[in-house]
């Protein structure tokens, strides 16, 4: 699930929860006693549900397969699940289906009638839908309205719950606390990592499906749940009452956490250079950026390293707002959708006005994060340092994914709905056509300055972004280290995954960025003194 492929712990929870839905779907035949056995014809409404899904794909996917491709793949999966061999002319027969009525009749005729009687109708339907989604480029996933609400809460950084991650303890056959978010409701109530949950609101969890446990633990803000937990091999059982609540997590952070709360944002005391790392692009990110920008101003920073390494994001809207925070006018980028294309133009005003900025990127900078990097580069807002980004390495990612409601809205389907392009329409991964000025001007970084400022006041530093190999996604202006082989995703910078400290000394790209910024500040100071500016 790309939409839940964030790197932070909370995203991991989202990912885990989303994964539950998939795994439990796959295993739902283990608890099928109440379901309708096969052999009684297609379940009522199945044809309609299937067609609604294909309608959604056809209407919203940026590059949809044909309806027949989806139906054929779905029916094959249905037969596989039922243990029935499809007829040799299935493909031809599917291709002849044109109208909804024809499909309903076709499904009624071809619905598997024999073989594995133990497979429930529900499991067959899930298999069929999974099958038809298999041929959707970029993948697709069905989520319930409830799951969608949770996803939206995560994306809005306002998830309401206990703020834990669950896993199934295979030995105990009970849910186990894989993670407990620091400061969250569960943490405050005394829940510990690796606790096994024995009861939820008085209900024994033995052999309870993880999905059901998650369902019982979730609820509205302010409501409570009582759980009975035990540490592994401990005898003591603790009963804890937890009130569900929000715990906004950090998506933009500084150099190191302060014991008093907040972040240190200057890399080294002697340099007026700030450091911010974006670890996730969520609705709160522009707000967090603003707050840290103010802190940097107050603490005397005049240049910025923006760390986008390891950042994968698929949510377009918060990325647009984040890019807008950096840009004073200019084109953020273009998005091609099934309904046309949209060019996003930045509003006036920007954070870090007049500051030179270097953005660190790597092969894992992907999706809308890569688009953000391209916007900073194309608007001369930041020089990029690091290794080339994801998209042209054969990695998917320069796409936007969105949930699309299906039918009456009880379900949604997460689809690739947009393709990200640079503001001038070039694909992120294309050769840098249209950017020749950078190749010759030797000025890959331009602090955002007012128009009236003499040109001598702007910095012109570093190398240009030409060089060998033009198949890169967003190509850095300054390549540092070896490019990761195509098809692989480089590891994130060491020591930064779990809130650990940045280690500037051992971070070669960061050192390069600081060198560039120091030089830029020096040049600006010289230029300003030359023009009598303060």
């Amino acid at each position, binding site marked *: 699930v790309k939409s839940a492929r964030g790197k932070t712990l909370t995203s991991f929870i989202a990912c885990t929860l989303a994964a539950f839905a998939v795994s439990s779907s796959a295993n739902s035949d283990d608890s099928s006693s109440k379901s309708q056995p096969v052999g009684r014809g297609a379940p009522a409404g199945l044809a309609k549900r299937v067609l609604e899904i294909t309608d959604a794909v056809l209407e919203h996917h940026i590059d949809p397969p044909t309806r027949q491709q989806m139906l054929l793949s779905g029916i094959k999966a249905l037969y596989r699940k039922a243990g029935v061999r499809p007829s040799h002319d299935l493909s031809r027969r599917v291709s002849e289906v044109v109208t909804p009525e024809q499909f309903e009749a076709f499904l009624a005729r071809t619905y598997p009638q024999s073989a594995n009687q133990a497979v429930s109708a529900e499991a067959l339907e899930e298999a069929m839908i999974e099958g038809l989604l298999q041929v959707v480029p970029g993948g697709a996933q069905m989520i319930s309205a409830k799951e969608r609400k949770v996803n939206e809460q995560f994306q809005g950084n306002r998830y309401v719950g206990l703020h834990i991650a669950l896993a199934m303890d295979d030995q105990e056959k009970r849910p186990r606390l894989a993670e407990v978010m620091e400061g969250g409701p569960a943490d405050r109530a005394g829940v510990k990592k690796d606790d096994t949950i024995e009861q939820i609101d008085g209900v024994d969890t033995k052999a309870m499906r993880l999905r059901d446990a998650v369902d019982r633990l979730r609820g509205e803000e302010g409501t409570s749940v009582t759980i009975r937990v035990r540490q592994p091999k401990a005898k003591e059982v603790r009963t804890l009452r937890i009130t569900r609540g929000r715990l906004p997590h950090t998506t933009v952070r500084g150099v190191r956490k302060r014991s008093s709360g907040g972040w240190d944002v200057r890399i080294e005391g002697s340099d007026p250079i700030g450091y911010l790392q974006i670890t996730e692009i969520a*609705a709160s990110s522009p707000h967090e950026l603003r707050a840290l920008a103010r802190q940097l101003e107050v603490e005397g920073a005049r240049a910025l390293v923006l760390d986008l390494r390891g950042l994968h994001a698929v949510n377009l809207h918060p990325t647009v707002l984040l890019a807008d925070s950096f840009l004073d006018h200019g084109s953020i980028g273009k998005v091609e959708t099934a309904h046309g294309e949209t060019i996003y133009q930045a509003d006036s005003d920007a954070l870090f006005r007049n500051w030179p900025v270097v953005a660190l990127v790597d092969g894992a900078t992907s999706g809308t994060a890569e688009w953000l990097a391209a916007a900073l580069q194309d608007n001369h807002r930041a020089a990029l340092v690091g290794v080339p980004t994801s998209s042209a390495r054969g990695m998917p990612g320069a796409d936007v994914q969105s949930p699309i409601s299906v039918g009456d809205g009880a379900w949604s389907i997460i689809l690739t709905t947009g393709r990200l392009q640079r503001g001038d329409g070039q694909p992120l991964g294309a050769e840098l056509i249209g950017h020749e000025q950078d190749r010759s001007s030797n000025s890959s970084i331009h602090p955002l300055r007012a128009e*009236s400022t003499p040109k001598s006041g702007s910095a012109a530093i570093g190398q240009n972004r030409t060089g060998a190999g033009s198949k890169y996604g967003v190509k850095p202006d300054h390549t540092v280290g070896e490019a990761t082989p195509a098809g692989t995703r480089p590891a994130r910078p060491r020591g930064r995954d779990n809130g650990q400290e940045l280690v500037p000394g051992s971070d070669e790209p960061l050192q390069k960025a600081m060198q560039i910024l120091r030089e830029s500040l020096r040049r600006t100071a010289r230029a300003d003194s030359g023009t009598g500016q303060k």
Partner: protein
Amino acid sequence: MVRPSFAQLVGAFLVAGFWSIAPAQGTRGSEPGSDVSQVRQVRQPIALACLDGGRRIVVANGRSGSVSIIDTRTQRIVAEYPVARALADLALLPGANHLITLDSLANELLLLRNGDQSIEVVSRVKVSPDPIRLVVSADGESCVVASRWSRRLTFVTLSKPESSGMSPTVSMNGSLDLPFCPREMAMLGNGPAIVVVEAFGGRLAIVDARRRVIESVRTLPGHNIRGLAFDRNGRTLVIAHQVLSRLAQASFDDVHWGLLVRNHLRVLQTEALLRPGSDASLLEGGRLFDLGDVGYAAGDPSALTVDVKGNLIVALAGVDEIGITPSPAQAPRRTVVGRRPTGLAASPDGSVVYVADALDDTVSIVDIRTGQRLASIALGQRPDLTAAERGERLFSSAKLSHDGWMSCHSCHTDGHTSNLLSDTLGDGSYGAPKRIPSLLGVAKTGPWTWTGSMARLEDQIRKSIKTTMHGSDPTQEQVADLSAYLNSLALPSPAARAIGQSDSQAVARGRRVFEFQKCATCHAPPDYTSPKNYDVGLVDEVGNRQFNPPSLRGVSQRDALFHDGRARSLDEVFRKVRHPRDLVLSREEIADLSAFLGTL
């Protein structure tokens, strides 16, 4: 009783001659000097000033047109004098013997004498229609009046009296047309530079008051500019305003995280302000500070003042608070005051600030050092509020929104429009930001929304509160009150804009063009709209082609036209957009049609 001096009479005559308007008629309503503090009425205090070294406070009551006097020692009302039909703004002349205020209905500037026992009107002179703000030079010898709907500055000379016991002579000294509706102004010392900002959008002009010319007009990234104050040494100008993002959506997330509407103090360098240049150059060396935060927003920042110690005091009108801070970089300490604080006056010794709580008819006294509200002084008895008056309170309350980020007024500034685009669910989806419509005269322009999807105004009110402001579900009474308030909003005066510019022949020709081109098919008189939707060759970002025609009543006072604001003037509507459907008109026809539409 007012007994104007010979000099004043001469001054008034000269003024009347200048404007070709009959001389001022003298004080209306109750006898000047009579105390009406016991009269039951809605007052709406909008401005105040300290008299006699802070021993008394004079309060200008916008709605009742009276001035109230407060004894600061006893914290009681000692008198109230009716001086006008309605008041806008108040300024003290050096020496504190005289005050200037504006009668916003009679379109007059009033010179008041601060007598021992009473406040007396000593002269009245006509100014351009809809006067809303005045600024007085440090030496008290000149004054500039900003008139909103007539988009004009009026320059006034205040001649020194021959003897100390006499009043200055007021005389008009010309006027200057502006490209926008002005509101707030600030003058540094004796000028000649005056900062004039737009009432609705973000335009800011520097005007040379001596030469009466516009030096520059630039646009700030922001709107609803309600506070202007130079710091004590005049090096920076602090501005209180809001920002509405065109890229944000009116979703819960964007409202919650302060991405849709934000409230700010902006600091501009005076040097950058006075140096002509681009919009960006205006921001050179400037800084932007947030007012409020997530969970604790500060909707609708309003009046600003700087006390003798340099403390900055800002009224947070939407959340009924004021904020006090020694520096804009420091989050203000916030104090709850009365409803809609819109006027501030710090005491001469810097100990307290007096706050005009416009919609509570009270004056709050707040200790500047501690932030404690020391007192709330009722200005007099008040009748039960009408539905429209209750609606006005709701309209200007950010408490109607999630966490207090915005009120209705934040976008529909003064019931009009900020002329900005906002991406709400008004058209059924996100992705196609729409121009915020003016609500002046809105009662007659149904169905509502750009796509005409709302048959009842009440439903649209409820929807805006729930899906744009993300406030609690309003009660039926609240919706009815808001509807009553919207129904009470009158159209802006088109005549005001057209002072001296209206060409009756051009208007008549323009009317014929309107008729010949069958414009009334969609824009049918008398309200120049119609209930159906039409495809006139416009399409928005999400594919909508059918739009409900906006009323053309008051159209000349809108500075952005069409659903996406693609035209910035009536001329652009026909010349650039060629509305409707690539209609080609001659230059003369466009001028005539614009002249006709300008009268609606």
